[in-house]
């Protein structure tokens, strides 16, 4: 494992104290951490999931739109925040790893450090009422 940037370390520490679901990826898009509220939504403990590459997390929870169509990784808010370095939002269905479908709202934002360092991205997850 490589040394994490201090900003990523600090946002993980912050996330570990928050009651809202937080999902963090590093600059390469690798899943770095999600907190306990996110574990409830995603249906799996982070300690069991561990770090994983973007191609894996982008499909692991089987994201679909409201019509039940699969969402490509490029359509996911976190992917957009990571690659386009802008805030992105969206509502989507996931199938959690406890096999429960959940409808969630996502707000994702890039992590930019001083010196124009791209550090990764963060998404905040909420369970939402289906429209």
């Amino acid at each position, binding site marked *: *494992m*490589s040394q*994490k940037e*201090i*900003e990523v370390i600090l946002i993980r520490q*912050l996330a570990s104290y928050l009651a809202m679901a937080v999902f963090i990826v590093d600059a390469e898009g690798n899943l770095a951490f999600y907190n306990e509220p996110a574990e409830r939504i995603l249906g799996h403990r982070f300690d069991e999931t561990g770090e994983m590459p973007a191609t894996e997390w982008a499909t692991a929870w089987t994201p679909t739109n409201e019509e039940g169509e699969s969402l490509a990784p490029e359509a996911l808010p976190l992917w957009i925040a990571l690659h386009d370095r802008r805030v992105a939002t969206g509502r989507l269905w996931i199938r959690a790893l406890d096999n429960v479908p959940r409808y969630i709202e996502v707000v994702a934002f890039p992590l930019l450090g*001083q010196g124009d360092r791209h550090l990764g991205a963060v998404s905040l997850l909420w369970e939402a009422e289906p429209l």
Partner: protein
Amino acid sequence: MTVTLWGTRGSLPAPGAETARYGGNTSCVEVRGRDGTVLVLDAGTGIRRLGKTLPNSLRRLDLLLTHLHMDHIQGLGFFAPLHNPDLEVHIWGPASTTANLRTRLMRYLSPPLFPVRLRDLPCRLTLHEVPCGDFSIGEFQVASALVCHPGPTVAYRISSARGALAYFPDHEPALGVQKFPMGCDWTSGCALAAGVDLLIHDAQYSKEEYPQHIGWGHSAVDDTLRFAALAEVKQLVPFHHDPAHNDDDLDRMIAAARATTRRFTITPGTEGAAFEVG
């Protein structure tokens, strides 16, 4: 390399009979190479005495600032080499997200805080912002990384062919960690300090004092020991002593630290102490 401690105190100078053994000057460390290269780590009040010992033949000096809190820059204006027009001085330090290093230094080196402006210093001055990747100064390879302390703060690793030193005067790697330490990859500064011969590290508080100072950017001695063990250093110098700790307090803290671990040598940060690294 020869590493000499010119100031070991944190936060505020603490002169007086009760601090005479460990010293009352704030952070300043000299690193001198076999080829004559001189690095100065931080410009606390200890830098004034250092300035008087440098050879007249010196033509270049590099000052590496970890951050711009007052106890790390207060000696700048009293550092004789900055007033020597024949000397090339390079100052390395962090910018902030909104101000470059020059602007940040000018806040102190300008009236009303100081009568001489940065631009009026007679030396041939060049500023460099860190972290900026690894760089070389004389025989030394220097690496830096942002670490856990309020405001932009870096730590340095200085390596020569014979050994390595890591300098972390202000560092709170345990901040927010529910069970410290986590793995090296998730611990602030760990890779920078990994395996060094000499680690100079913040040890401002006792275990009992730390809970009242969480988030102030400094370490309890116990956490410093854990960090040093995680980084697998060979020798630890507890540093940045709290101005409220007198020599007897520090004797007790160091004795307790030595009783805790034998994985590495513990040598307390004492003004005037010198170490041969490598």
